[in-house]
């Protein structure tokens, strides 16, 4: 799963290329009460996402006449609660609070879900961080996407997020995709999170932490599209396995 070739380097977790992603793992339909759920891991970063809906909104004023509202709830793990200096990469959200991350995930999901098919409904997506070891925000969005697939919500395309580590002073190359938290903490690098979809070109949402050059961002967005193909292929396998499993246990003749 190599995205782009870069000079020989040894990353803290043993990967030898800036373009390689960590191994993905997923457990689909792990929550029995949710309409859709997925526990998604990228390396040792693990996020649990649950989807409830489409359902009637609890507050009538929340609904939109012509389309669905996607409400996201983002919860960090226990370690995050109160960090005095909340701007270092030690903070799980890199300084961004849960509201900002909810917006990032919500926007990407709303761009890809067929919201016109569910007018006056709310689709609630709950994200719980289980373990954070780098590329947290991207893993969270990917977990949400997989949970939506499990819930059977109609989607136009799949939003996938990719994290890229770029050098602050813009030296060519040196980009690292899917960084671990050890790599993210470095002062000389900035973290860019970009969400793309499986169908069209272009960036749906982006959130960045640290300074960078425009060229780095554009290269990262290009790489994100390529990386997303690998993630989607993985999700396809995960869903196929779930359907095969369900066919055996639920609909055995």
């Amino acid at each position, binding site marked *: 799963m190599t995205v782009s070739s870069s000079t020989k380097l040894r990353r803290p977790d043993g990967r030898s290329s800036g373009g390689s992603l960590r191994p993905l793992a997923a457990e689909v339909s792990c929550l029995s009460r949710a309409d859709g759920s997925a526990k998604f891991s990228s390396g040792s970063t693990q996020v649990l996402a649950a989807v409830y809906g489409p359902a009637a909104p609890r507050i009538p004023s929340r609904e939109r006449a012509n389309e669905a509202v996607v409400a996201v709830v983002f919860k960090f793990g226990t370690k995050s609660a109160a960090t005095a200096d909340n701007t270092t990469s030690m903070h799980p959200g890199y300084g961004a609070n849960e509201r900002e991350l909810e917006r990032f995930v919500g926007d990407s999901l709303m761009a890809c879900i067929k919201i016109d098919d569910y007018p006056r409904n709310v689709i609630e997506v709950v994200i719980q961080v289980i373990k954070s070891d780098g590329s947290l925000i991207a893993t969270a969005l990917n977990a949400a996407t997989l949970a939506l697939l499990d819930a059977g919500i109609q989607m136009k395309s799949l939003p996938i997020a990719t994290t890229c580590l770029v050098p602050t002073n813009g030296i060519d190359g040196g980009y690292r995709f899917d960084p671990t938290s050890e790599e993210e903490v470095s002062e000389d690098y900035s973290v860019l999170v970009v969400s793309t979809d499986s169908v069209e070109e272009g960036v*749906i949402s*982006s*959130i*960045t932490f640290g300074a960078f050059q*425009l060229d780095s961002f554009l290269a990262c967005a290009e790489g994100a599209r390529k990386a997303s193909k690998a993630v989607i292929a993985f999700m396809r396998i995960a869903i196929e396995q779930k359907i095969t499993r369900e066919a055996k246990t639920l609909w055995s003749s």
Partner: protein
Amino acid sequence: MEDSLEIFRAIDPEDYLKKFTNANTRPDSRAHHATRQTNVQTSILTQNSYGSSLVTIGNTKVITAITLQVGTPSPLTPSHGEIDVTVNFSPLCGGQYNTAGRVVHDDYEHRSVAANAYADPQSLQSFVKRTIISSNMIDLKQLCIFEGKAAWKIEVSCIVVNHDGNVVDAFLLGAVSALMDLTLPQVKMNKVDGQEIVELVASDEDVLKPKNSMVGGKKLDFQKLVVPLTIGFFGGKMLVDPTLEEESLCEGMITVVVDGNSLSKDDGVLTGDILNLSKSGMNKCSLEEIAACSQLAFGRAKELEAILKP
């Protein structure tokens, strides 16, 4: 004629705006790439705050004020102070906020997804705060009073006085200009009842108000010049510095924050460091559009250099 125009605007705001954008203009006659008149006034609240500013972008008005506290620095960073930024909305700024500063969900208000993202106070506060702090525009060591024992905690507070769109830019410009206006008062360490405390060295012992205690105070040094630009996407067109009306109809928004001190010309093209690039909303932004937005942001930084720097 005037009445029917207003009725059209109220019934079908999207089509109303489309009529302008299709003719390469906007309701306030601006070009798509033009920003509104931007003004920054500093030292507007000298009675109770150590640094303050009033930023106006068109009709959007934001007041920023800085108050100071003394705290004990963290053992990991014994000579670093702290900066905290809060933003406040109220019914004063417009009808869409209630007294608790939260967005009011109205049956009649149409707000796009992107506009909702830019209306959420907590999300905006997080964005503004982390942009200011992670930009490292101020070396926090300047806030040290006594290593390991006392350091300044700067509290930057932004209030929207009138909301006509693009408060994000106003918040960032307000915070930057207030910090530039800030004078840290002269202090000394003193022992009172066996405890070490930090005391103001005021010019007049009886009146310890900011404006009196700033004599001999110190201004901060800035490593970077943080300048933002917000652009809305409407029907495939980019509207720079959207008004409230335009913001509520844009299907996507992007805010690019750049470092005005890092600008340089590369092959005749203005370039520099980007401190934050946040795209929200439901549209897909092509790489060309992102590059164009960054270009516009660099241009904005060049333009505002004159009014931000004293």
